[in-house]
């Protein structure tokens, strides 16, 4: 990890225009039932963060706190309401190939009409890289994610885990400076998830990319990240705490110390949630909230390995 700042987030706030909150439910967004704000509230308010080059950075927070929102702003898919996001001192104004994105749902993100190899070559093709070179790079990336032998298969012949690997390889092959990943393993079963986590660490080590990784799984956060940004809850969510994980890779979640660090992180998250809830509803009510906070943490942790 160098000391150059790669991404600089300053005073970011975000407000959605929502006509009808019921819409959110119909989109199957039941995890966000507990969004306490009104349509006109800020989801994110005054978020500040610096990420160094080559850093593996985690966003951790309860469901619905705005992690995806912030990520989408960094990726350039969403407009911020206030503030600035800079990549290498240049303001971000839209999507760009220097920021590769790995989406949660591989099914909707990869191109079903292209073979694995063509999917992986996609970014290179867009940039006009010659066929031979494209192939070489793609095959390397495919090998890196452990899909060797599946180059000529189509996505509908792959399992969920393999599709997610394709997505990662596709991002890697395009050689972005930053890799943005939104709960990339959230939809996978535990076994596949664990394998892919290890592979991701290897890839990061090999390529030295800056990684921005969203999860609401505390164990995953501790297992993967160098630094963890902890979010308070929406509305007016922001990054309220930053934890540095002091262990070397590969980490072992069954290790006593790591286990304790997970506990510590859990507490920090609890505090963050409690504090922001207290702020929302007035300090005197904070005590009563204790239980609710625990619930939220439990939920945040609900897909823990």
């Amino acid at each position, binding site marked *: 990890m160098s000391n150059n700042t790669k991404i600089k987030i300053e005073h970011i706030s975000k407000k959605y225009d929502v006509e009808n909150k019921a819409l959110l439910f119909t989109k199957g967004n039941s995890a966000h039932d507990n969004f306490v704000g009104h349509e006109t509230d800020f989801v994110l308010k005054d978020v500040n963060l610096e990420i160094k080059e080559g850093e593996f950075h985690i966003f951790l927070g309860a469901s619905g706190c705005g992690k995806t929102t912030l990520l989408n702003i960094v990726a350039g898919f969403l407009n911020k309401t206030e503030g600035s996001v800079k990549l290498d001192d240049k303001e971000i104004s839209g*999507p760009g190939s220097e920021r590769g994105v790995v989406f949660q749902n591989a099914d909707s993100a990869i191109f079903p009409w292209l073979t694995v190899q063509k999917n992986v070559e*996609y970014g290179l093709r*867009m940039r006009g890289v010659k066929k031979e070179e494209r192939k070489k790079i793609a095959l390397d990336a495919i090998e890196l994610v452990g899909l060797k032998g599946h180059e000529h298969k189509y996505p509908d012949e792959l399992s969920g885990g393999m599709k997610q690997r394709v997505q990662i390889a596709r991002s890697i092959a395009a050689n972005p400076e930053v890799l943005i990943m939104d709960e990339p393993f959230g939809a996978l079963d535990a076994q596949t998830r664990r394998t892919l986590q290890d592979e991701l660490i290897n890839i990061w080590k090999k390529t030295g990319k800056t990684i921005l990784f969203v999860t609401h799984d505390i164990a995953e956060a501790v297992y993967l990240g160098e630094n963890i940004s902890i979010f308070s809850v929406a509305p007016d969510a922001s990054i309220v705490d930053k934890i540095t994980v002091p262990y070397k890779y590969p980490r072992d979640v069954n290790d006593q110390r790591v286990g304790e660090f997970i506990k510590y992180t859990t507490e920090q998250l609890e505090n963050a949630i409690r504090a922001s809830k207290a702020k929302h509803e007035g300090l005197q009510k904070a005590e009563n909230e204790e239980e609710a906070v625990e619930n939220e943490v439990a939920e945040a942790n609900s897909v823990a390995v």
Partner: protein
Amino acid sequence: MKNITRKIIKSGIISWAVLFVIWGIVSLFYAESFFPSPVETFVGFKEIVLNGKLWEDISISVQRVLLGWSRALLIGIPVGLLIGRFRIVNWFIEPFINFFRFVPAIGFLTLFLMWFGVGEESKLILITYASIFPIIINTIAGVNTINPVKYQAAESLGANRFQSFITVTVPGAVPSILTGARLGLSTAIISIVGAEMLAANSGLGYLVYTSRLYYRTDWIFVGIVTLGVLGFFADKFLRFVAKKSLKHYGVTG
């Protein structure tokens, strides 16, 4: 045993057999010029098969349908893609589509003849006009079903607006385009009668439309059956080819 019965029922042979029987029975009660029987129809059929007229009619109508339909595809698909992808195009063109799709092609019969002459042109334009709407409308629908995440992915992999149009919008809309193409083909076949009311001397539509002028109800039946059979198999063929070659685009047939 049960399986064979099933296969037979599924193949539709029984349905056709029943239809033929009903046709035969109904025709017993009527004169040939009113309701020709299957046998009378077959005699009429033999007549125009043997003198070569039916083949000529089929080949000319098939040509017209294919040409008119191809043009509808060539215009309709890009227009539909653009409307679906770019809101400004949508706002500008959609009102016309939602207007003209209620204006029947045969309403333009005389006009097309006047404007485009007695040659093939006016007939092709009529077929194209009739079959372009399902193509455009389905293409638009197809573009709208594309998950926005795909565009985000393309753009963050370095694709510009044009590239993402070509590499995401176009392939993503393929299944609906195919539906549109199939419906368009059926409309093209349907509109052949209208087109061949326009200064034609041959063709299946001409056969159907003018046979009554020569009191040959049996030929009307021959024309109708031929159109139905052609359409049936053209559609089956189109589905088959698409299913084989466009499987990975999500075409399920």
